[in-house]
């Protein structure tokens, strides 16, 4: 156990180090001078030089890299060039939108995919299997931002059930906040649920053909009992992997959906920061998102360990 854990931890830290170097290098080649951007085209050369000095842009690259990484380890993500507030503060604000959005979408995804996948696999070849597979085939082909536009058209423009975009904020009550996230969450969840349904179905079909299912049936378990007690539990391993990837995707990949609905989330923050050359925001938020992805994958690896006793014994 401790060996396995130590191995995973080392690879986690190594991935983070390499990722931070890659992000830093990409930022180095990003054209455009932040100082110029802040002061505008008519800035005096000496004012520009002074601001560059103040922003620490004149320090050698290695010093800036370590300054950035060590800062982040202390929770200091730098100060945004455009917003003039600490990046950490921006991140905390925006996470209040992105995290609930990701959690709600993932919950929807699992709630749809789990039963749909089980029904399709348990009644393989039936009409319901055919329907589920047909719908998911469409679901994976639909771009989520297009689905979002259609949802806005139907539920905001025609039916007036929800607003077409923007975020009401959590301070006006839980329901008001949640209401702004309903359509974006559905738009994000549909394609993800389609993918997960297919994974669930094929994982379950694999386990259903295993010998231990035949044994379970032979010892007198009903089809349903064998399904729930043995097949579903064993099918969860590949499903868990995909759920982990999907959570990471939903956290970072909501960038387009946040743009459709004008939601002030992390994705939109990075997107705007890229356009405004607010490099410190881009660098730190991208690093945070990569950290989230790598960390979720790490948790999934640990999850295997909890789910699969064979792994535990081998370690």
């Amino acid at each position, binding site marked *: 156990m401790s060996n396995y854990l130590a191995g995973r931890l080392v690879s986690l830290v190594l991935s983070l180090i390499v990722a931070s170097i890659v992000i830093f290098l990409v930022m180095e080649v990003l054209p455009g001078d932040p100082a110029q951007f802040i002061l505008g085209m008519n800035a005096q050369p000496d004012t520009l030089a002074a601001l560059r000095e103040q922003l620490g842009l004149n320090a050698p690259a290695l010093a800036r890299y370590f300054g950035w990484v060590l800062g982040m380890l202390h929770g200091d993500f730098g100060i945004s060039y455009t917003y003039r507030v600490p990046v950490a503060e921006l991140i905390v604000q925006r996470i209040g939108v992105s995290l609930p959005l990701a959690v709600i979408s993932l919950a929807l995804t699992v709630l749809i995919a789990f039963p749909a996948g089980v029904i399709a696999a348990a009644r393989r070849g039936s009409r319901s299997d055919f329907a589920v597979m047909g719908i998911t085939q469409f679901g994976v082909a639909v771009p989520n931002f297009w689905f979002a536009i259609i949802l806005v058209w139907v539920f905001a423009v025609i039916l007036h059930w929800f607003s077409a975009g923007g975020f009401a904020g959590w301070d006006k009550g839980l329901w008001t906040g949640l209401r702004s996230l309903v359509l974006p969450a559905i738009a994000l969840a549909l394609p993800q649920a389609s993918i997960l349904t297919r994974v669930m179905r094929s994982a379950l079909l694999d386990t259903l053909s295993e010998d231990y299912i035949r044994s379970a049936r032979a010892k007198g378990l009903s089809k349903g009992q064998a399904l729930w007690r043995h097949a579903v539990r064993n099918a969860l391993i590949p499903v868990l992997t995909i759920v982990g990837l999907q959570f990471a995707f939903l956290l970072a990949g909501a960038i387009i959906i946040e743009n459709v609905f004008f939601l002030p989330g992390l994705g939109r923050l990075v997107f705007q920061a890229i356009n405004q050359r607010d490099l410190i925001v*881009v660098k730190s938020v*991208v690093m945070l998102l990569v950290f989230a992805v790598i960390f979720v994958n790490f948790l999934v690896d640990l999850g295997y360990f909890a789910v699969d006793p064979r792994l535990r014994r081998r370690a």
Partner: protein
Amino acid sequence: MTDAIATRGSMRRAALASPSFVAGAIVTVLFVGMAVLSFIWTPYDYAAQDIPNKLKGLTAAHWFGTDQYGRDVFSQILVGSRTSITVAFVAVTVGVGIGVPLGLWAAARNGSLLDEIIMRANDLIFAFPALLIAILITAVFGPGAVNAVIAIGIFNIPVFARLTRGAALSLWPRDFVLAARVAGKGKAEISVEHILPNILNTLVVQVTIQFSLGILAEAALAYVGLGAQPPTPSWGKMLADSQTLVSLAPHLAIIPGLAIVFTVLGLNLLGDGLRDIFDPQLRRSRR
């Protein structure tokens, strides 16, 4: 991969018996046909404005209506399919061109430092949120179709490298590879002459999948304004423009979206169908 060699005739029968393949092939041919057609004929000049006839619905004169400048939507859809195809095609080519050799190389030197480095680098690319990095790349090098291709292509590399390595590794211990080694062939030669032809089927299926993902990614980049730049029409850009007009002219949002959905659906069905045809065993276990 079964040892039984499928004859051409049995392959053809299997192809026609697979509804996924037939439907997917028809849609894909239509899609490519649209792009080719757009070079020689469109009902109108896709960029020609006709303000008095703006935001018209579906009519005999304008099959898919007109947009806010009175431009013909059907013509834009036709020309837009070129953008989708080109970006997705080149992005897949980048992935295959770099990923497959890397995968073959890693498999030939399985367990070596090189193998380890290639696979770790792949893992690392997977850890980056793809769309975010694509946006970053297009922001670094400027928006446009070429940079969209690079951004999407980079993420195709690890997909093909990993797939190739996995498939190649399962072939290396096989007898025919051993025979080639005994005959004195080098690892590179064996990889190209014996391994590659035997994993082509798997690769072709993945190509169709990555192609459809490429079309979705191109649409997403174009939607946020980082794909092909105006006046070049692209389906994602059309959707972005339609968003504020959805209450006045919903067809502007519906039509380009349906174009994307059907194209991606067609490619996915084609991929499923091909997998069934190439690997009858898998089909039996899947259904």
